[in-house]
């Protein structure tokens, strides 16, 4: 079971419902074994926002033992984009530059604002030209209909980088459209999240990682070996169906039971060990790796991509003289917001004082509530066992008080 072929498993068993039942039983067996060896509680971190979505939406937490905690990691690029860049985009849009963004960036709130404008949505209502697109090709199509200077906010992880690289290498970027490359690399954030989790010995340790599937189609599963080797914990590159995630949890527990710590691929349908070498080469050609700023976290070494000097005519950083955020500005969360801890798996959304009180999907305050991949937005929309427990606790304390 070093690399797991879910398709074959399903075809052997004939039914994914039977398979899910079998997997949850196996998970419990391994858990019983681990508890007999003295394990009381442990955490498994899912890195990707879409994994958190699958876990919460399908109620997978209710299928695993209560002391086996599934926590979300920093797998939402919108959540970790510094407020500084939102302000840069607001400023550009107010100065007559057409700003193209993905839908979730549109609502993302900055901490400081620009002339009392706190989001690109507000900027647009005041006359700023902000346009929502689903991909860079839509921006390119639209930009050809006008000659105004324009910027595309290139937020994302490794998955979007080959697309931006191809557009630059094939020379298809119109002269008046510049890319603001805010691409983040996932492994350094994972190292940081694991380092932080080990600082607090009172908390159950993170003993397994469900690694992002589509990021790994580009980087290859090999990108995660430093996690399994240096931190001595199992890493499973997982697909996004509920059964995929359950199999990944099972594989982590299986490895823990045997005292192993390896990187394995569950999502064999799409992921290979080395990834797409051609895509990696095109990324390396266009981009260079820098120490990048993560919102609420700070600068992480070698964790971001910026356009190389050779291609700077396509770069919004160069065109508009945009600077990287000063380190002092990076603890840039709204007052009371615990998003910085939520993205590191240190706190659940329900532990934030703003969650579903002042911060809601309709009127998000913290970045984790903005994006559909933000942990708070997922919990708010689909609820979860923890959310129900929290509400029950609150209600019972109110009843006691009266």
């Amino acid at each position, binding site marked *: 079971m070093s690399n797991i072929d*879910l*398709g074959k498993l*399903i075809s052997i068993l004939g*039914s*994914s*419902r039977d398979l899910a039942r079998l997997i949850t039983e196996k998970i419990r067996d391994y858990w019983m074994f681990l508890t007999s060896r003295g394990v009381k509680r442990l955490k498994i971190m899912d890195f*990707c*926002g*879409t*994994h958190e979505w699958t876990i919460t939406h399908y109620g997978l937490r209710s299928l695993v033992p209560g002391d086996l905690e599934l926590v979300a990691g920093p*797998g*939402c*690029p*919108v959540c970790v984009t510094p407020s500084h860049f939102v302000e840069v985009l607001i400023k550009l849009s107010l100065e007559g530059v057409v700003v193209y963004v*993905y839908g979730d960036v549109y609502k993302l709130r900055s901490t400081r604002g620009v002339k009392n404008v706190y989001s690109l949505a507000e900027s647009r209502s005041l006359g700023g030209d902000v346009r929502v697109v*689903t*991909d*860079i*090709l*839509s921006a390119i*199509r639209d930009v050809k209909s006008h000659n105004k200077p324009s910027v595309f906010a290139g937020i*994302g*992880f490794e*998955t*979007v980088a*080959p*697309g931006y690289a*191809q*557009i630059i*290498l*094939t020379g*298809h970027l119109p002269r008046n459209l510049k890319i603001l490359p805010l691409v983040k690399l996932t492994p350094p954030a994972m190292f940081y999240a694991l380092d932080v989790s080990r600082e607090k010995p009172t908390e159950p340790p993170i003993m397994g990682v469900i690694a*992002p*599937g*589509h*990021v790994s*189609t*580009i980087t290859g599963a090999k990108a995660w070996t430093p996690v399994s080797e240096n931190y001595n914990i199992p890493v499973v590159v997982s697909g*996004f*169906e*509920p*059964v995929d995630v359950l199999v990944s949890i099972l594989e982590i527990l299986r490895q823990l039971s045997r005292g192993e710590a390896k990187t394995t691929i569950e999502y064999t*349908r*799409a*992921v290979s060990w080395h990834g*797409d*070498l*051609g*895509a990696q*080469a*095109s990324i390396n050609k266009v981009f260079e790796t820098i120490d990048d700023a993560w919102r609420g976290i700070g600068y992480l070494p070698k964790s971001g991509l910026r356009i190389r000097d050779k291609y700077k005519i396509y770069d919004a950083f160069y065109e508009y003289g945009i600077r990287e955020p000063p380190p002092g500005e990076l603890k840039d969360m709204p007052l009371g917001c615990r998003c910085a801890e939520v993205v590191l798996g240190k706190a659940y959304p329900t532990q934030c004082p703003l969650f579903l009180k002042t911060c809601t999907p309709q009127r998000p305050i913290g970045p984790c509530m903005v994006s*559909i*991949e933000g942990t708070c937005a997922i919990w708010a929309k689909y609820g979860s066992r923890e959310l129900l427990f929290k509400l029950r606790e609150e209600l019972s304390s109110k009843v006691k008080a009266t």
Partner: protein
Amino acid sequence: MCIGAPAVVLDVDYENMIASVDYGDGIPRTVIIGILDQIIKRGELVIVHAGVIVSKITEEELIEQVEFFREVLGEDIQLTQIYRQLIETHRKITQAVKDHN
């Protein structure tokens, strides 16, 4: 940021590294070819992430997803109908390409 939607490739333009795909709603959309190690051909099924093709998938894998949804929910939902549409388009184009050759 791992949301990926399956789509069927309608046309490929390798010179410009773009392809036209259908997400199952019958509307052709242009996307960037992000994978370079594998050749993408008309009629093939792919995963598209933020307008970038990030991997190829097979018909069996898509059928597996349709079966999974049908089993969990006990009925067809819009998503399974879209996936079925994708599989049908994939079969039609693949057959047409075969006949042409």
